[in-house]
Structure formats: C-alpha cells, structure tokens
C-alpha cells in the first residue's frame, strides 16, 4: 500500500479550481519530488496532505486524500494528530523565538509525549521526570537532524542566533521530535546557500530510511539528485508522475520534456 494517495483530488478557492483531479500515490520511505513552475499548484497539493489549506478561507477540497488508506478529510479526523504524523518544513526557516532546546521540545511538551511523571509525589518529581524524558527526545531529534554536534553546548541559547541552514535543520528536528511518519518539505532549501542545501539533501537521504518524504522544489537538479519519484505539475494539473530517472531521461509527455529541458518558462 502507498503511504499517501490521492484519488481525483480537487481543490477550489471559491469558484476557482486550483487543483484539477490529481490522482497519485506516494511510496513509503521514498523521496517524492514535486516540480513545476510557480503557481502550478504543487505547494497547494502538498498542503492537502496535512490539511493546511483548511486555514485558507474559501478553500474547499473534493475527491480523496489518503494516509495509509484512511481518508484524511473524514469528519472524525483529529487534525492535530494528523499534523503530528505528517510534519512540515517550510521555505523560510521558522524556528520559534525561543531556545534551541525549547524549539525541539515544543511538540513533545504540547502533545505530552515525554515520559510521564509517576502518580505519587507529582509536585516534587514532576518537573524532573518530564525533563529527563524530554532531554532524550530533544537530543535524539537534534541528532537525527544532523544538528546535535553544532548545538549541544548551547541548547539554551536562542534559536534565532543560528545560521539559516542550522535553523532549517532545527525546524526538521522540531518535526522529528513528535515522531512523524511523513515529512512534507515546501522548498526547504530556497533560502539556503549551496553548502547548506547539500547538507539538507544529505539529511533527506538519511531520513528517507525511516520516513516518507515529499518535497516541493523549484530546483530541477535537486529533484533529479535527491528523489526517487518526480511529479510534474502544470496549471493545477499533474502532467506526469514517474520514477525520477525516467522523468529526466525520457519523459512520456512533451510538456514534461519541454519543462525539464528548460524550454518552458
């Protein structure tokens, strides 16, 4: 079974059909890239999976989006839990204006994921017990985001003092701290320099062993380098979706060929 799947998924902003009947599946523990020009719907499509479009007034979804075969838009879906299972990393690193530690600990604290305090003598042991569990979670997430070595000696310092690349890895750590299954990345490297970009790409390859990753990117070379599958979007339509090597060596659609060879805008 695919990890994520859409069946004739459509999205409307009011009367405007922004996504036209998208049917595709995302393989588990693979990296799937979504490419296409600006405004073609790839980010909109990405946001369907964690229902971020719900926050946009007038946005309406039709068709199906499934996580492990379950309807993401079913009325009884706990959206908070959905967004724990499907995490998101944004184009501009957006750490909270708090310490590095508190950024990574935020999700587990809010969701109560740290080791529970014993029922007796809660007042005395509560804080310490919670912290011990959190410490582990924070370290694990920062390690998994390849950031631990750089920040382990300054966990209490402000996240905003980190470089852009480090901040982005902290945002990834924040997502990992709540043990997601899927990581959505919306142009995660656009705001980063080439060296930081390569580090993120390397990290993606490591993460792929445990998580399903979907990345929206403007950078075709990045899609070609990093992903296993690529979907090409054009004007709200999924034009072609196939193994990355195939998309970049012999695409089936002429439109895809024109785009990847740079003949389209």
């Amino acid at each position, binding site marked *: 079974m695919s990890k994520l799947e859409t069946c004739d998924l459509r999205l409307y902003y009011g009367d405007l059909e922004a996504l036209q009947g998208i049917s595709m599946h995302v393989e588990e523990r693979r990296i799937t890239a979504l490419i296409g020009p600006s405004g073609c719907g790839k980010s909109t499509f990405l946001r369907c999976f964690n229902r971020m479009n719900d926050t946009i007034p007038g946005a309406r979804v039709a068709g199906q989006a499934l996580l492990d075969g379950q309807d993401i838009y079913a009325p009884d879906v706990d959206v908070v839990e959905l967004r724990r299972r499907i995490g998101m990393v944004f184009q501009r690193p957006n750490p909270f204006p708090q310490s590095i530690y508190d950024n990574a600990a935020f999700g587990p604290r809010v969701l109560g994921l740290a080791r529970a305090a014993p029922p007796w003598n809660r007042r005395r042991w509560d804080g310490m017990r919670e912290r011990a569990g959190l410490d582990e979670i924070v370290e694990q997430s920062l390690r998994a985001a390849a950031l631990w070595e750089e920040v382990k000696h300054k966990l209490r310092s402000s996240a905003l003092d980190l470089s852009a690349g480090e901040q982005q890895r902290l945002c990834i750590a924040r997502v990992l701290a709540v043990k997601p299954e899927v990581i959505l990345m919306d142009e995660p490297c656009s705001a980063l320099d080439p060296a930081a970009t*390569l580090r993120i*790409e*390397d990290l993606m*390859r*490591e993460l792929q062993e445990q998580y399903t990753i979907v990345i929206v990117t403007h950078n075709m*070379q990045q899609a*070609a*380098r*990093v992903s296993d599958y690529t979907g090409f979007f054009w004007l709200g339509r999924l034009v072609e979706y196939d193994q*990355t*090597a195939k998309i*970049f*060596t012999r695409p089936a659609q002429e439109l895809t060929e024109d785009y990847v060879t740079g003949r389209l805008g």
Partner: protein
Amino acid sequence: MTKARELFDRGLAELRDRILELGTMVETAISQAFRALREQDREIARQVIAGDEQINARRYDVEECCLRLIATQQPTARDLRAIVAAIHIVTELERIGDYASGIAELAIRLAGQPFLKPLIDLPRMAQIDQEMVCASLEAYLAYDPELAFNTARRDAEIDQLDDQIYRELLTYMLDDPRTIPRATYLLWVSHKLERIADRVTNICERVVFMATGEVKEFNF
C-alpha cells in the same frame, strides 16, 4: 564523505562492473570464435553468433546506466569524462563482439574443408587481441594512461601479422586458384582480427582522455 557522493560512487562502481562484464563476454567471444575456427566446430561457432545478442543488450544496459547518472548526478570533471568514456568504450566493445561473431560465421564456412596450412599467425593475432582487450580494460579501471598507451602500441604487432598473412595467402592463391575461396575467408578472419586491435586502440584513446582530459590519437 556525503551520502550523495557515496551514492554516486556506487553508481560509478556499478558502471565499471558492467563494463568489465561486457569486456569478459567479448574476450570469451574472440576466444571461442577462434576455437570454432581451429577445431572446425560449427556448434561452438553458432553459440558465439547467438551470444552476440547478449553483448548488444549489455551495451545498451551500460548506456542506460550512463544516461541515468548524467541526468541525476550532474557529473563534472573526471566523473563526467569517465561516464562519456564509458559510452564510447562499450560501443567499441560491442563492435569487437560483432567481429568475433563474424569470425564465427567464417569458421562455419571453413568447417569440413582441409586447412590450407597450419594456423600459426592467426592464433597469434587472436591471442594478442584478447590480451589487448584485457589490458585496455585494466587501464580503464586504473585510470592508467601509460598502460593504455602501451596496450595501443601492440596494434603494430597485429598490423605486421596481418600483412604477413596477406602475403602468405597471396602466394597460395597465385600458386593454385582452387585455394582462393579458403584463402579469402582466412583473409577476412585476419582482417577482423586486425579491426579488433584498431577498436582496442580507440578504447585506449578514451582511457587517456578519461584520465588526463587530453585527446590523443594513437596511430601505430
């Protein structure tokens, strides 16, 4: 080393393995084709001819591998030259396979007829050809321009033997016109063995290009 580089290196290693595999298939084809000629064995000859299909398929496998690496890894410098060289090298290996197949066909035509003369120079040419194929691929693996150069130089030995065979067979034909058909076939065998060495020289030129970036023509 980054994971990206590791993945790329694995892809390049896979490419090298496939080329070596193809090289071994081609060496075997030369050796078996010659065995068919020497032992007048039509069955072995037919196997060589049938085996050429696999050699062709393998060549396209390698090209596909190269296409994928170029599209997904954006290779530069030495890596780019290695991949481009690989495409040329397998084309040459595939042509060598065709020549071996051609020798097998001639073996079928010659089978059942008495040998014009004991085969001495032709087996020597076939042996040198195999050694050259093997050495050229060693040079490719090791990025060794010196070995490539020394291997290509042996083309001169092949040309000399080819010349010798021509003069010898000419005297047979002039002496007795009834030998012309068999002599002609043997001339063609010699010609194919000579062309094999030319192809190996091309491989060696590609190895030098891959290792140094220099385009050198070998004319021995």
